[in-house]
């Protein structure tokens, strides 16, 4: 029996090659997209899920309640961990870790031989860190490796990079920035990519004097994380309650500050998904995004299944004779359902096999796009296979069941007398509904894609209020020797033809990681109730970035802070009526440590991405805080200038590693995740349209065959080719228009939500919708038109002769 089914199925499929092709192509693309999205989601969900104590590991985070709203930080003040250990000895582990800078020098026989910049992975931490996270140790003892000052453990790949092989690393030394030599005491296996704690160089916290002497309970940076492991019998809620008393005891609220600080536990399994706090990888993946992707995967699969249902029910007429014969010869309905489901299974199976190959081929591209390697390891293969089997079963049922029911329900008498036509078989209206569904989904995706792309263009093209073009950002080492060379370096750079401006500053006008602080304004005893960004920079900053003054003048050049310039937003936030009113007023930072008058107001510029509000900004000179050099260059000579700048830099700062970034490149990085999203949307919207059109083409081809006689008669009676093409496209035009009416409000609703995340955003103009419906219609007409034209230009004699 089975053999007979398979034989019929294969011969049938072979006979209807175009239908097979369309079905397999659609399903292959649908399943492959599904698999790829599954791999992405699986990867993102797997972050840090491999630690034995994962359910008891928490990060202590800080929430600032300011009058303007809540601010979130993944960090806590440095003394928190030690105080937690003392106050709550029942905690299994409480550990502080601080991200370090990137300069590592490798020593051999006490002499520096190689320098490296480790952009992530350098940490200062306490020894108990290895009791929290599961790292496999290759050499050394995790319990004692970093207990002493100036000891460090390395990941396997860094050990290989520094010393040739990890076996030789232990006992060797490295230097962090300009520290004394740090001895390597252990090597651990590389941290997997799905971890937000990417340890590379783990240096004992006792090696860092500023951390060891830090008793400041007020300052917080996101670089300093406190991770704890709760005892088995304690819940996060219980400990959160204890943290209220803890905060009151150690960091009492002063009467003058309006900011309330509170500590909260964040479970390890939420760290990767909560963009309010961020991670050491500078990358979070919101649950919302995961749901969005899963939805897209389901959509694509549904679209592919719809093709299958449409084509199979339309094609059912051709199978009616077979159904009739089988029924006459004693086949039951159940047997026939089984037979047709079997055929669906064969097609799905073929598609799934091809999809696996396609997925495998596409993986490198997707990994590139997502900037992570999502290639599954051998351990994930069973999980992947299980998913694939689930997809096959789902698709077989979704797409096979309805056609099987229709086919097996034929009355054998009508079936044998060929009295069945595409119209008399149920499902014509269902086919219409499905086409509407298909194009509805496709149009939601088209509109979403257009909105995302436009918002990205908006990000790229909108002026941030300063000139971001052709400015090079280079680091300025922090030590005093390097700082003393500032003027010489500037002179050497300015001598190069093509370099017009050189400026020293703490950060770029818009930059990652801001320094912000409140101050007392105009002799007020109470500090202001917000924290402006501090932009320490020399006078050249204004010309280098083309900042414009709206009142007063730029401050004069000085090594210390003698004068301030503020921006318009700050003036507004202070409640002053005009920029002029701010001139001459005094700003007092940190209880009189820096006091100076405002001498100018600069036109507003964005100090962070367009996703966020315009920040209030205070600018002033402060030589000791400068960390970067901004160089404006003539882009037509960029190649030679880049080489010259690198040469000058290396000669001036021989102990450090050179790197550079163009300002506009840095700004693009603000929108990395949005950019990835827009790429994904483009691809998936394209796929949705393609699969839908594939189905449309199949449906129209079938209609053309079914209506050959009708077309012949119409032509004999005088219909033109245009009339015939109209006949075919009329219905689809109507269906796509209906699908648009459903898709447009849905897309509007979702995308308005998405846009609302950004403070500076585009309007959802009417043209998104016009382009979507016009585009869908055009594509559909092209698809339908080709097949319809073929039918229309056929000689009617041929089609009527068959009668």
């Amino acid at each position, binding site marked *: *029996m089975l053999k*007979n089914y398979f*034989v*019929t199925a294969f*011969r*049938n499929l072979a*006979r209807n090659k175009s239908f097979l092709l369309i079905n397999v192509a659609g399903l292959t693309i649908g399943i492959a997209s599904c698999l790829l999205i599954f791999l992405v989601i699986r990867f993102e969900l797997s972050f840090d899920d491999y630690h034995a104590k994962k359910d008891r590991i928490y990060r202590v985070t800080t929430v600032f309640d300011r009058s303007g709203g809540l601010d979130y930080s993944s960090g806590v003040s440095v003394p928190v961990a030690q105080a937690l250990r003392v106050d709550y000895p029942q905690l299994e582990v409480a550990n502080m870790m601080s991200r370090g800078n990137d300069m590592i020098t490798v020593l051999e026989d006490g002499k520096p031989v190689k320098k490296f910049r480790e952009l992530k992975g350098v940490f200062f931490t306490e020894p108990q860190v290895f009791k929290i996270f599961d790292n496999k140790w290759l050499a050394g003892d995790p319990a004692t490796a970093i207990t002493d000052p100036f000891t460090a453990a390395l990941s396997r790949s860094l050990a290989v990079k520094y010393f040739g092989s990890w076996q030789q690393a232990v006992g060797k030394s490295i230097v962090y920035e300009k520290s004394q030599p740090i001895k390597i005491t252990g090597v651990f296996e590389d941290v997997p990519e799905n971890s937000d704690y990417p340890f590379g160089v783990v240096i004992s916290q006792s090696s860092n004097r500023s951390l060891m002497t830090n008793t400041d309970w007020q300052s917080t940076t996101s670089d300093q994380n406190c991770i704890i492991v709760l005892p088995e019998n304690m819940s996060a809620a219980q400990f959160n309650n204890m943290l209220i008393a803890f905060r009151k005891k150690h960091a009492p609220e002063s009467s003058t500050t309006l900011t309330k600080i509170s500590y909260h536990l964040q479970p390890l399994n939420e760290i990767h998904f909560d963009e309010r706090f961020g991670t050491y990888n500078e990358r979070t993946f919101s649950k919302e995004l995961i749901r969005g992707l899963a939805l897209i995967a389901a959509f694509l699969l549904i679209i592919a299944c719809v093709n299958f249902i449409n084509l199979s029910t339309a094609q059912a007429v051709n199978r009616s*004779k*077979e159904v*009739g*014969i*089988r*029924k*006459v*010869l*004693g*086949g*039951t*309905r159940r*047997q026939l359902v089984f037979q047709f489901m079997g055929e669906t299974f064969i097609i799905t199976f073929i598609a799934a096999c091809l999809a696996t190959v396609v997925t495998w081929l596409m993986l490198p591209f997707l990994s590139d796009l997502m900037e992570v390697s999502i290639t599954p390891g051998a351990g994930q293969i069973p999980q992947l296979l299980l998913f694939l089997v689930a997809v096959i079963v789902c698709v077989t049922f979704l797409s096979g069941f309805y056609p099987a029911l229709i086919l097996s329900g034929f009355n*054998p*008498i009508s079936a*044998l007398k060929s009295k069945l036509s595409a119209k008399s078989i149920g499902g014509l209206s269902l086919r219409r509904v499905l086409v509407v569904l298909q194009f509805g989904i496709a149009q939601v995706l088209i509109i979403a894609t257009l909105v995302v792309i436009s918002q990205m263009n908006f990000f790229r093209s909108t002026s941030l209020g300063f000139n971001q073009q052709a400015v090079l950002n280079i680091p300025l080492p922090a030590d005093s020797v390097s700082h003393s060379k500032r003027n010489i370096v500037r002179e050497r750079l300015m001598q190069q033809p093509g370099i017009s401006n050189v400026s020293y500053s703490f950060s770029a006008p818009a930059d990652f990681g801001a320094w912000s602080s409140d101050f007392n304004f105009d002799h007020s005893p109470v500090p202001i109730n917000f924290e402006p960004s501090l932009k320490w920079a020399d006078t050249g900053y204004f010309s280098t970035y083309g900042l414009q003054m709206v009142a007063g003048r730029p401050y004069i050049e000085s090594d210390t802070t003698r004068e301030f310039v503020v921006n318009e937003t700050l003036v507004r936030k202070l409640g002053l009526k005009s920029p002029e009113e701010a001139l001459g007023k005094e700003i007092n930072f940190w209880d009189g440590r820096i006091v100076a008058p405002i001498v100018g107001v600069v036109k507003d510029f964005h100090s962070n991405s367009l996703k966020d509000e315009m920040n209030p900004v205070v600018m002033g000179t402060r030589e000791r805080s400068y960390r970067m050099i901004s160089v404006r260059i003539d882009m037509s000579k960029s190649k030679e200038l880049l080489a010259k700048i690198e040469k000058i830099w290396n000669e001036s700062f021989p102990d450090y590693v050179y790197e550079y970034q163009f300002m506009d490149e840095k700004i693009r990085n603000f929108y990395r995740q949005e950019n990835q999203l827009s790429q994904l949307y483009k691809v998936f919207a394209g796929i949705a349209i393609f699969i839908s059109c594939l189905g449309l083409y199949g449906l129209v081809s079938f209609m053309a065959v079914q209506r050959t006689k009708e077309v012949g008669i119409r032509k004999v009676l005088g219909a033109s080719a245009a009339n015939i093409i109209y006949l075919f496209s009329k219905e689809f035009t109507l269906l796509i228009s209906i699908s648009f009416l459903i898709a447009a409000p849905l897309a509007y609703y979702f995308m308005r939500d998405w846009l609302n995340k950004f403070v500076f955003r585009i309007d959802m103009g009417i043209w998104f919708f016009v382009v979507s419906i016009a585009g869908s219609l055009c594509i559909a007409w092209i698809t339908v038109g080709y097949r319809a034209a073929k039918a229309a230009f056929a000689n009617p004699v041929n089609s009527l002769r068959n009668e």
Partner: protein
Amino acid sequence: MINITNLEKVYRTDEVETIALNKLSIEIKKGEFVAVMGPSGCGKSTLLNILGLLDDPDAGSFVFNGTEIAKYNERQRAELRKHNIGFVFQSFNLIDELTVFENVELPLIYTGVKASERKQKVDEVLEKVQIMHRRNHYPQQLSGGQQQRVAVARAVVNNPKLILADEPTGNLDSSNGNEVMELLTNLNEQGTTIIMVTHSEHDARYSHRIIRMLDGQTVTENILI
């Protein structure tokens, strides 16, 4: 073997009511060869569909082998049909995707005969209708007469007690037609009951009895032997 009494069948559309069978009563004995004749629309095909358990009557009694089956549901009819009745159609109705052998094998598959036994039975019956040499061909590769011989083979492979033939020679030329009629006669001589709908007086002469129908009723019966 078959005893129908006051059988009625009415086809209704929104506006028209067509009486296909009007209190029809017929008795057919085991081993008979009966031809049913009449003009188009007289109810021949409806009668054949009901006799073949493909359709159910609206009223009346249908006794098959001593059992009343007028009220059987589809599953019961299918069960009875596959063990007792073989069909031969005017348009052959072979499945294009299956070979000659596989087409003839189909009824055996549905009655659950084992593979080895199936092969033997199919080969036997193909031998009998002299189409053995074409057993691996597809229907499109055969002439009309050959296709109808395959259809006859398929109808008898299960050893049915009754064969229903709906204008078996309608699509054939006279020599092929005669071959098929000879085949049916042979089967009848071996004990199979045959009911044949036909327009051809020539074919009807192969039967024992001709039932002539008009407007859903029998008008005359001619006994030929």
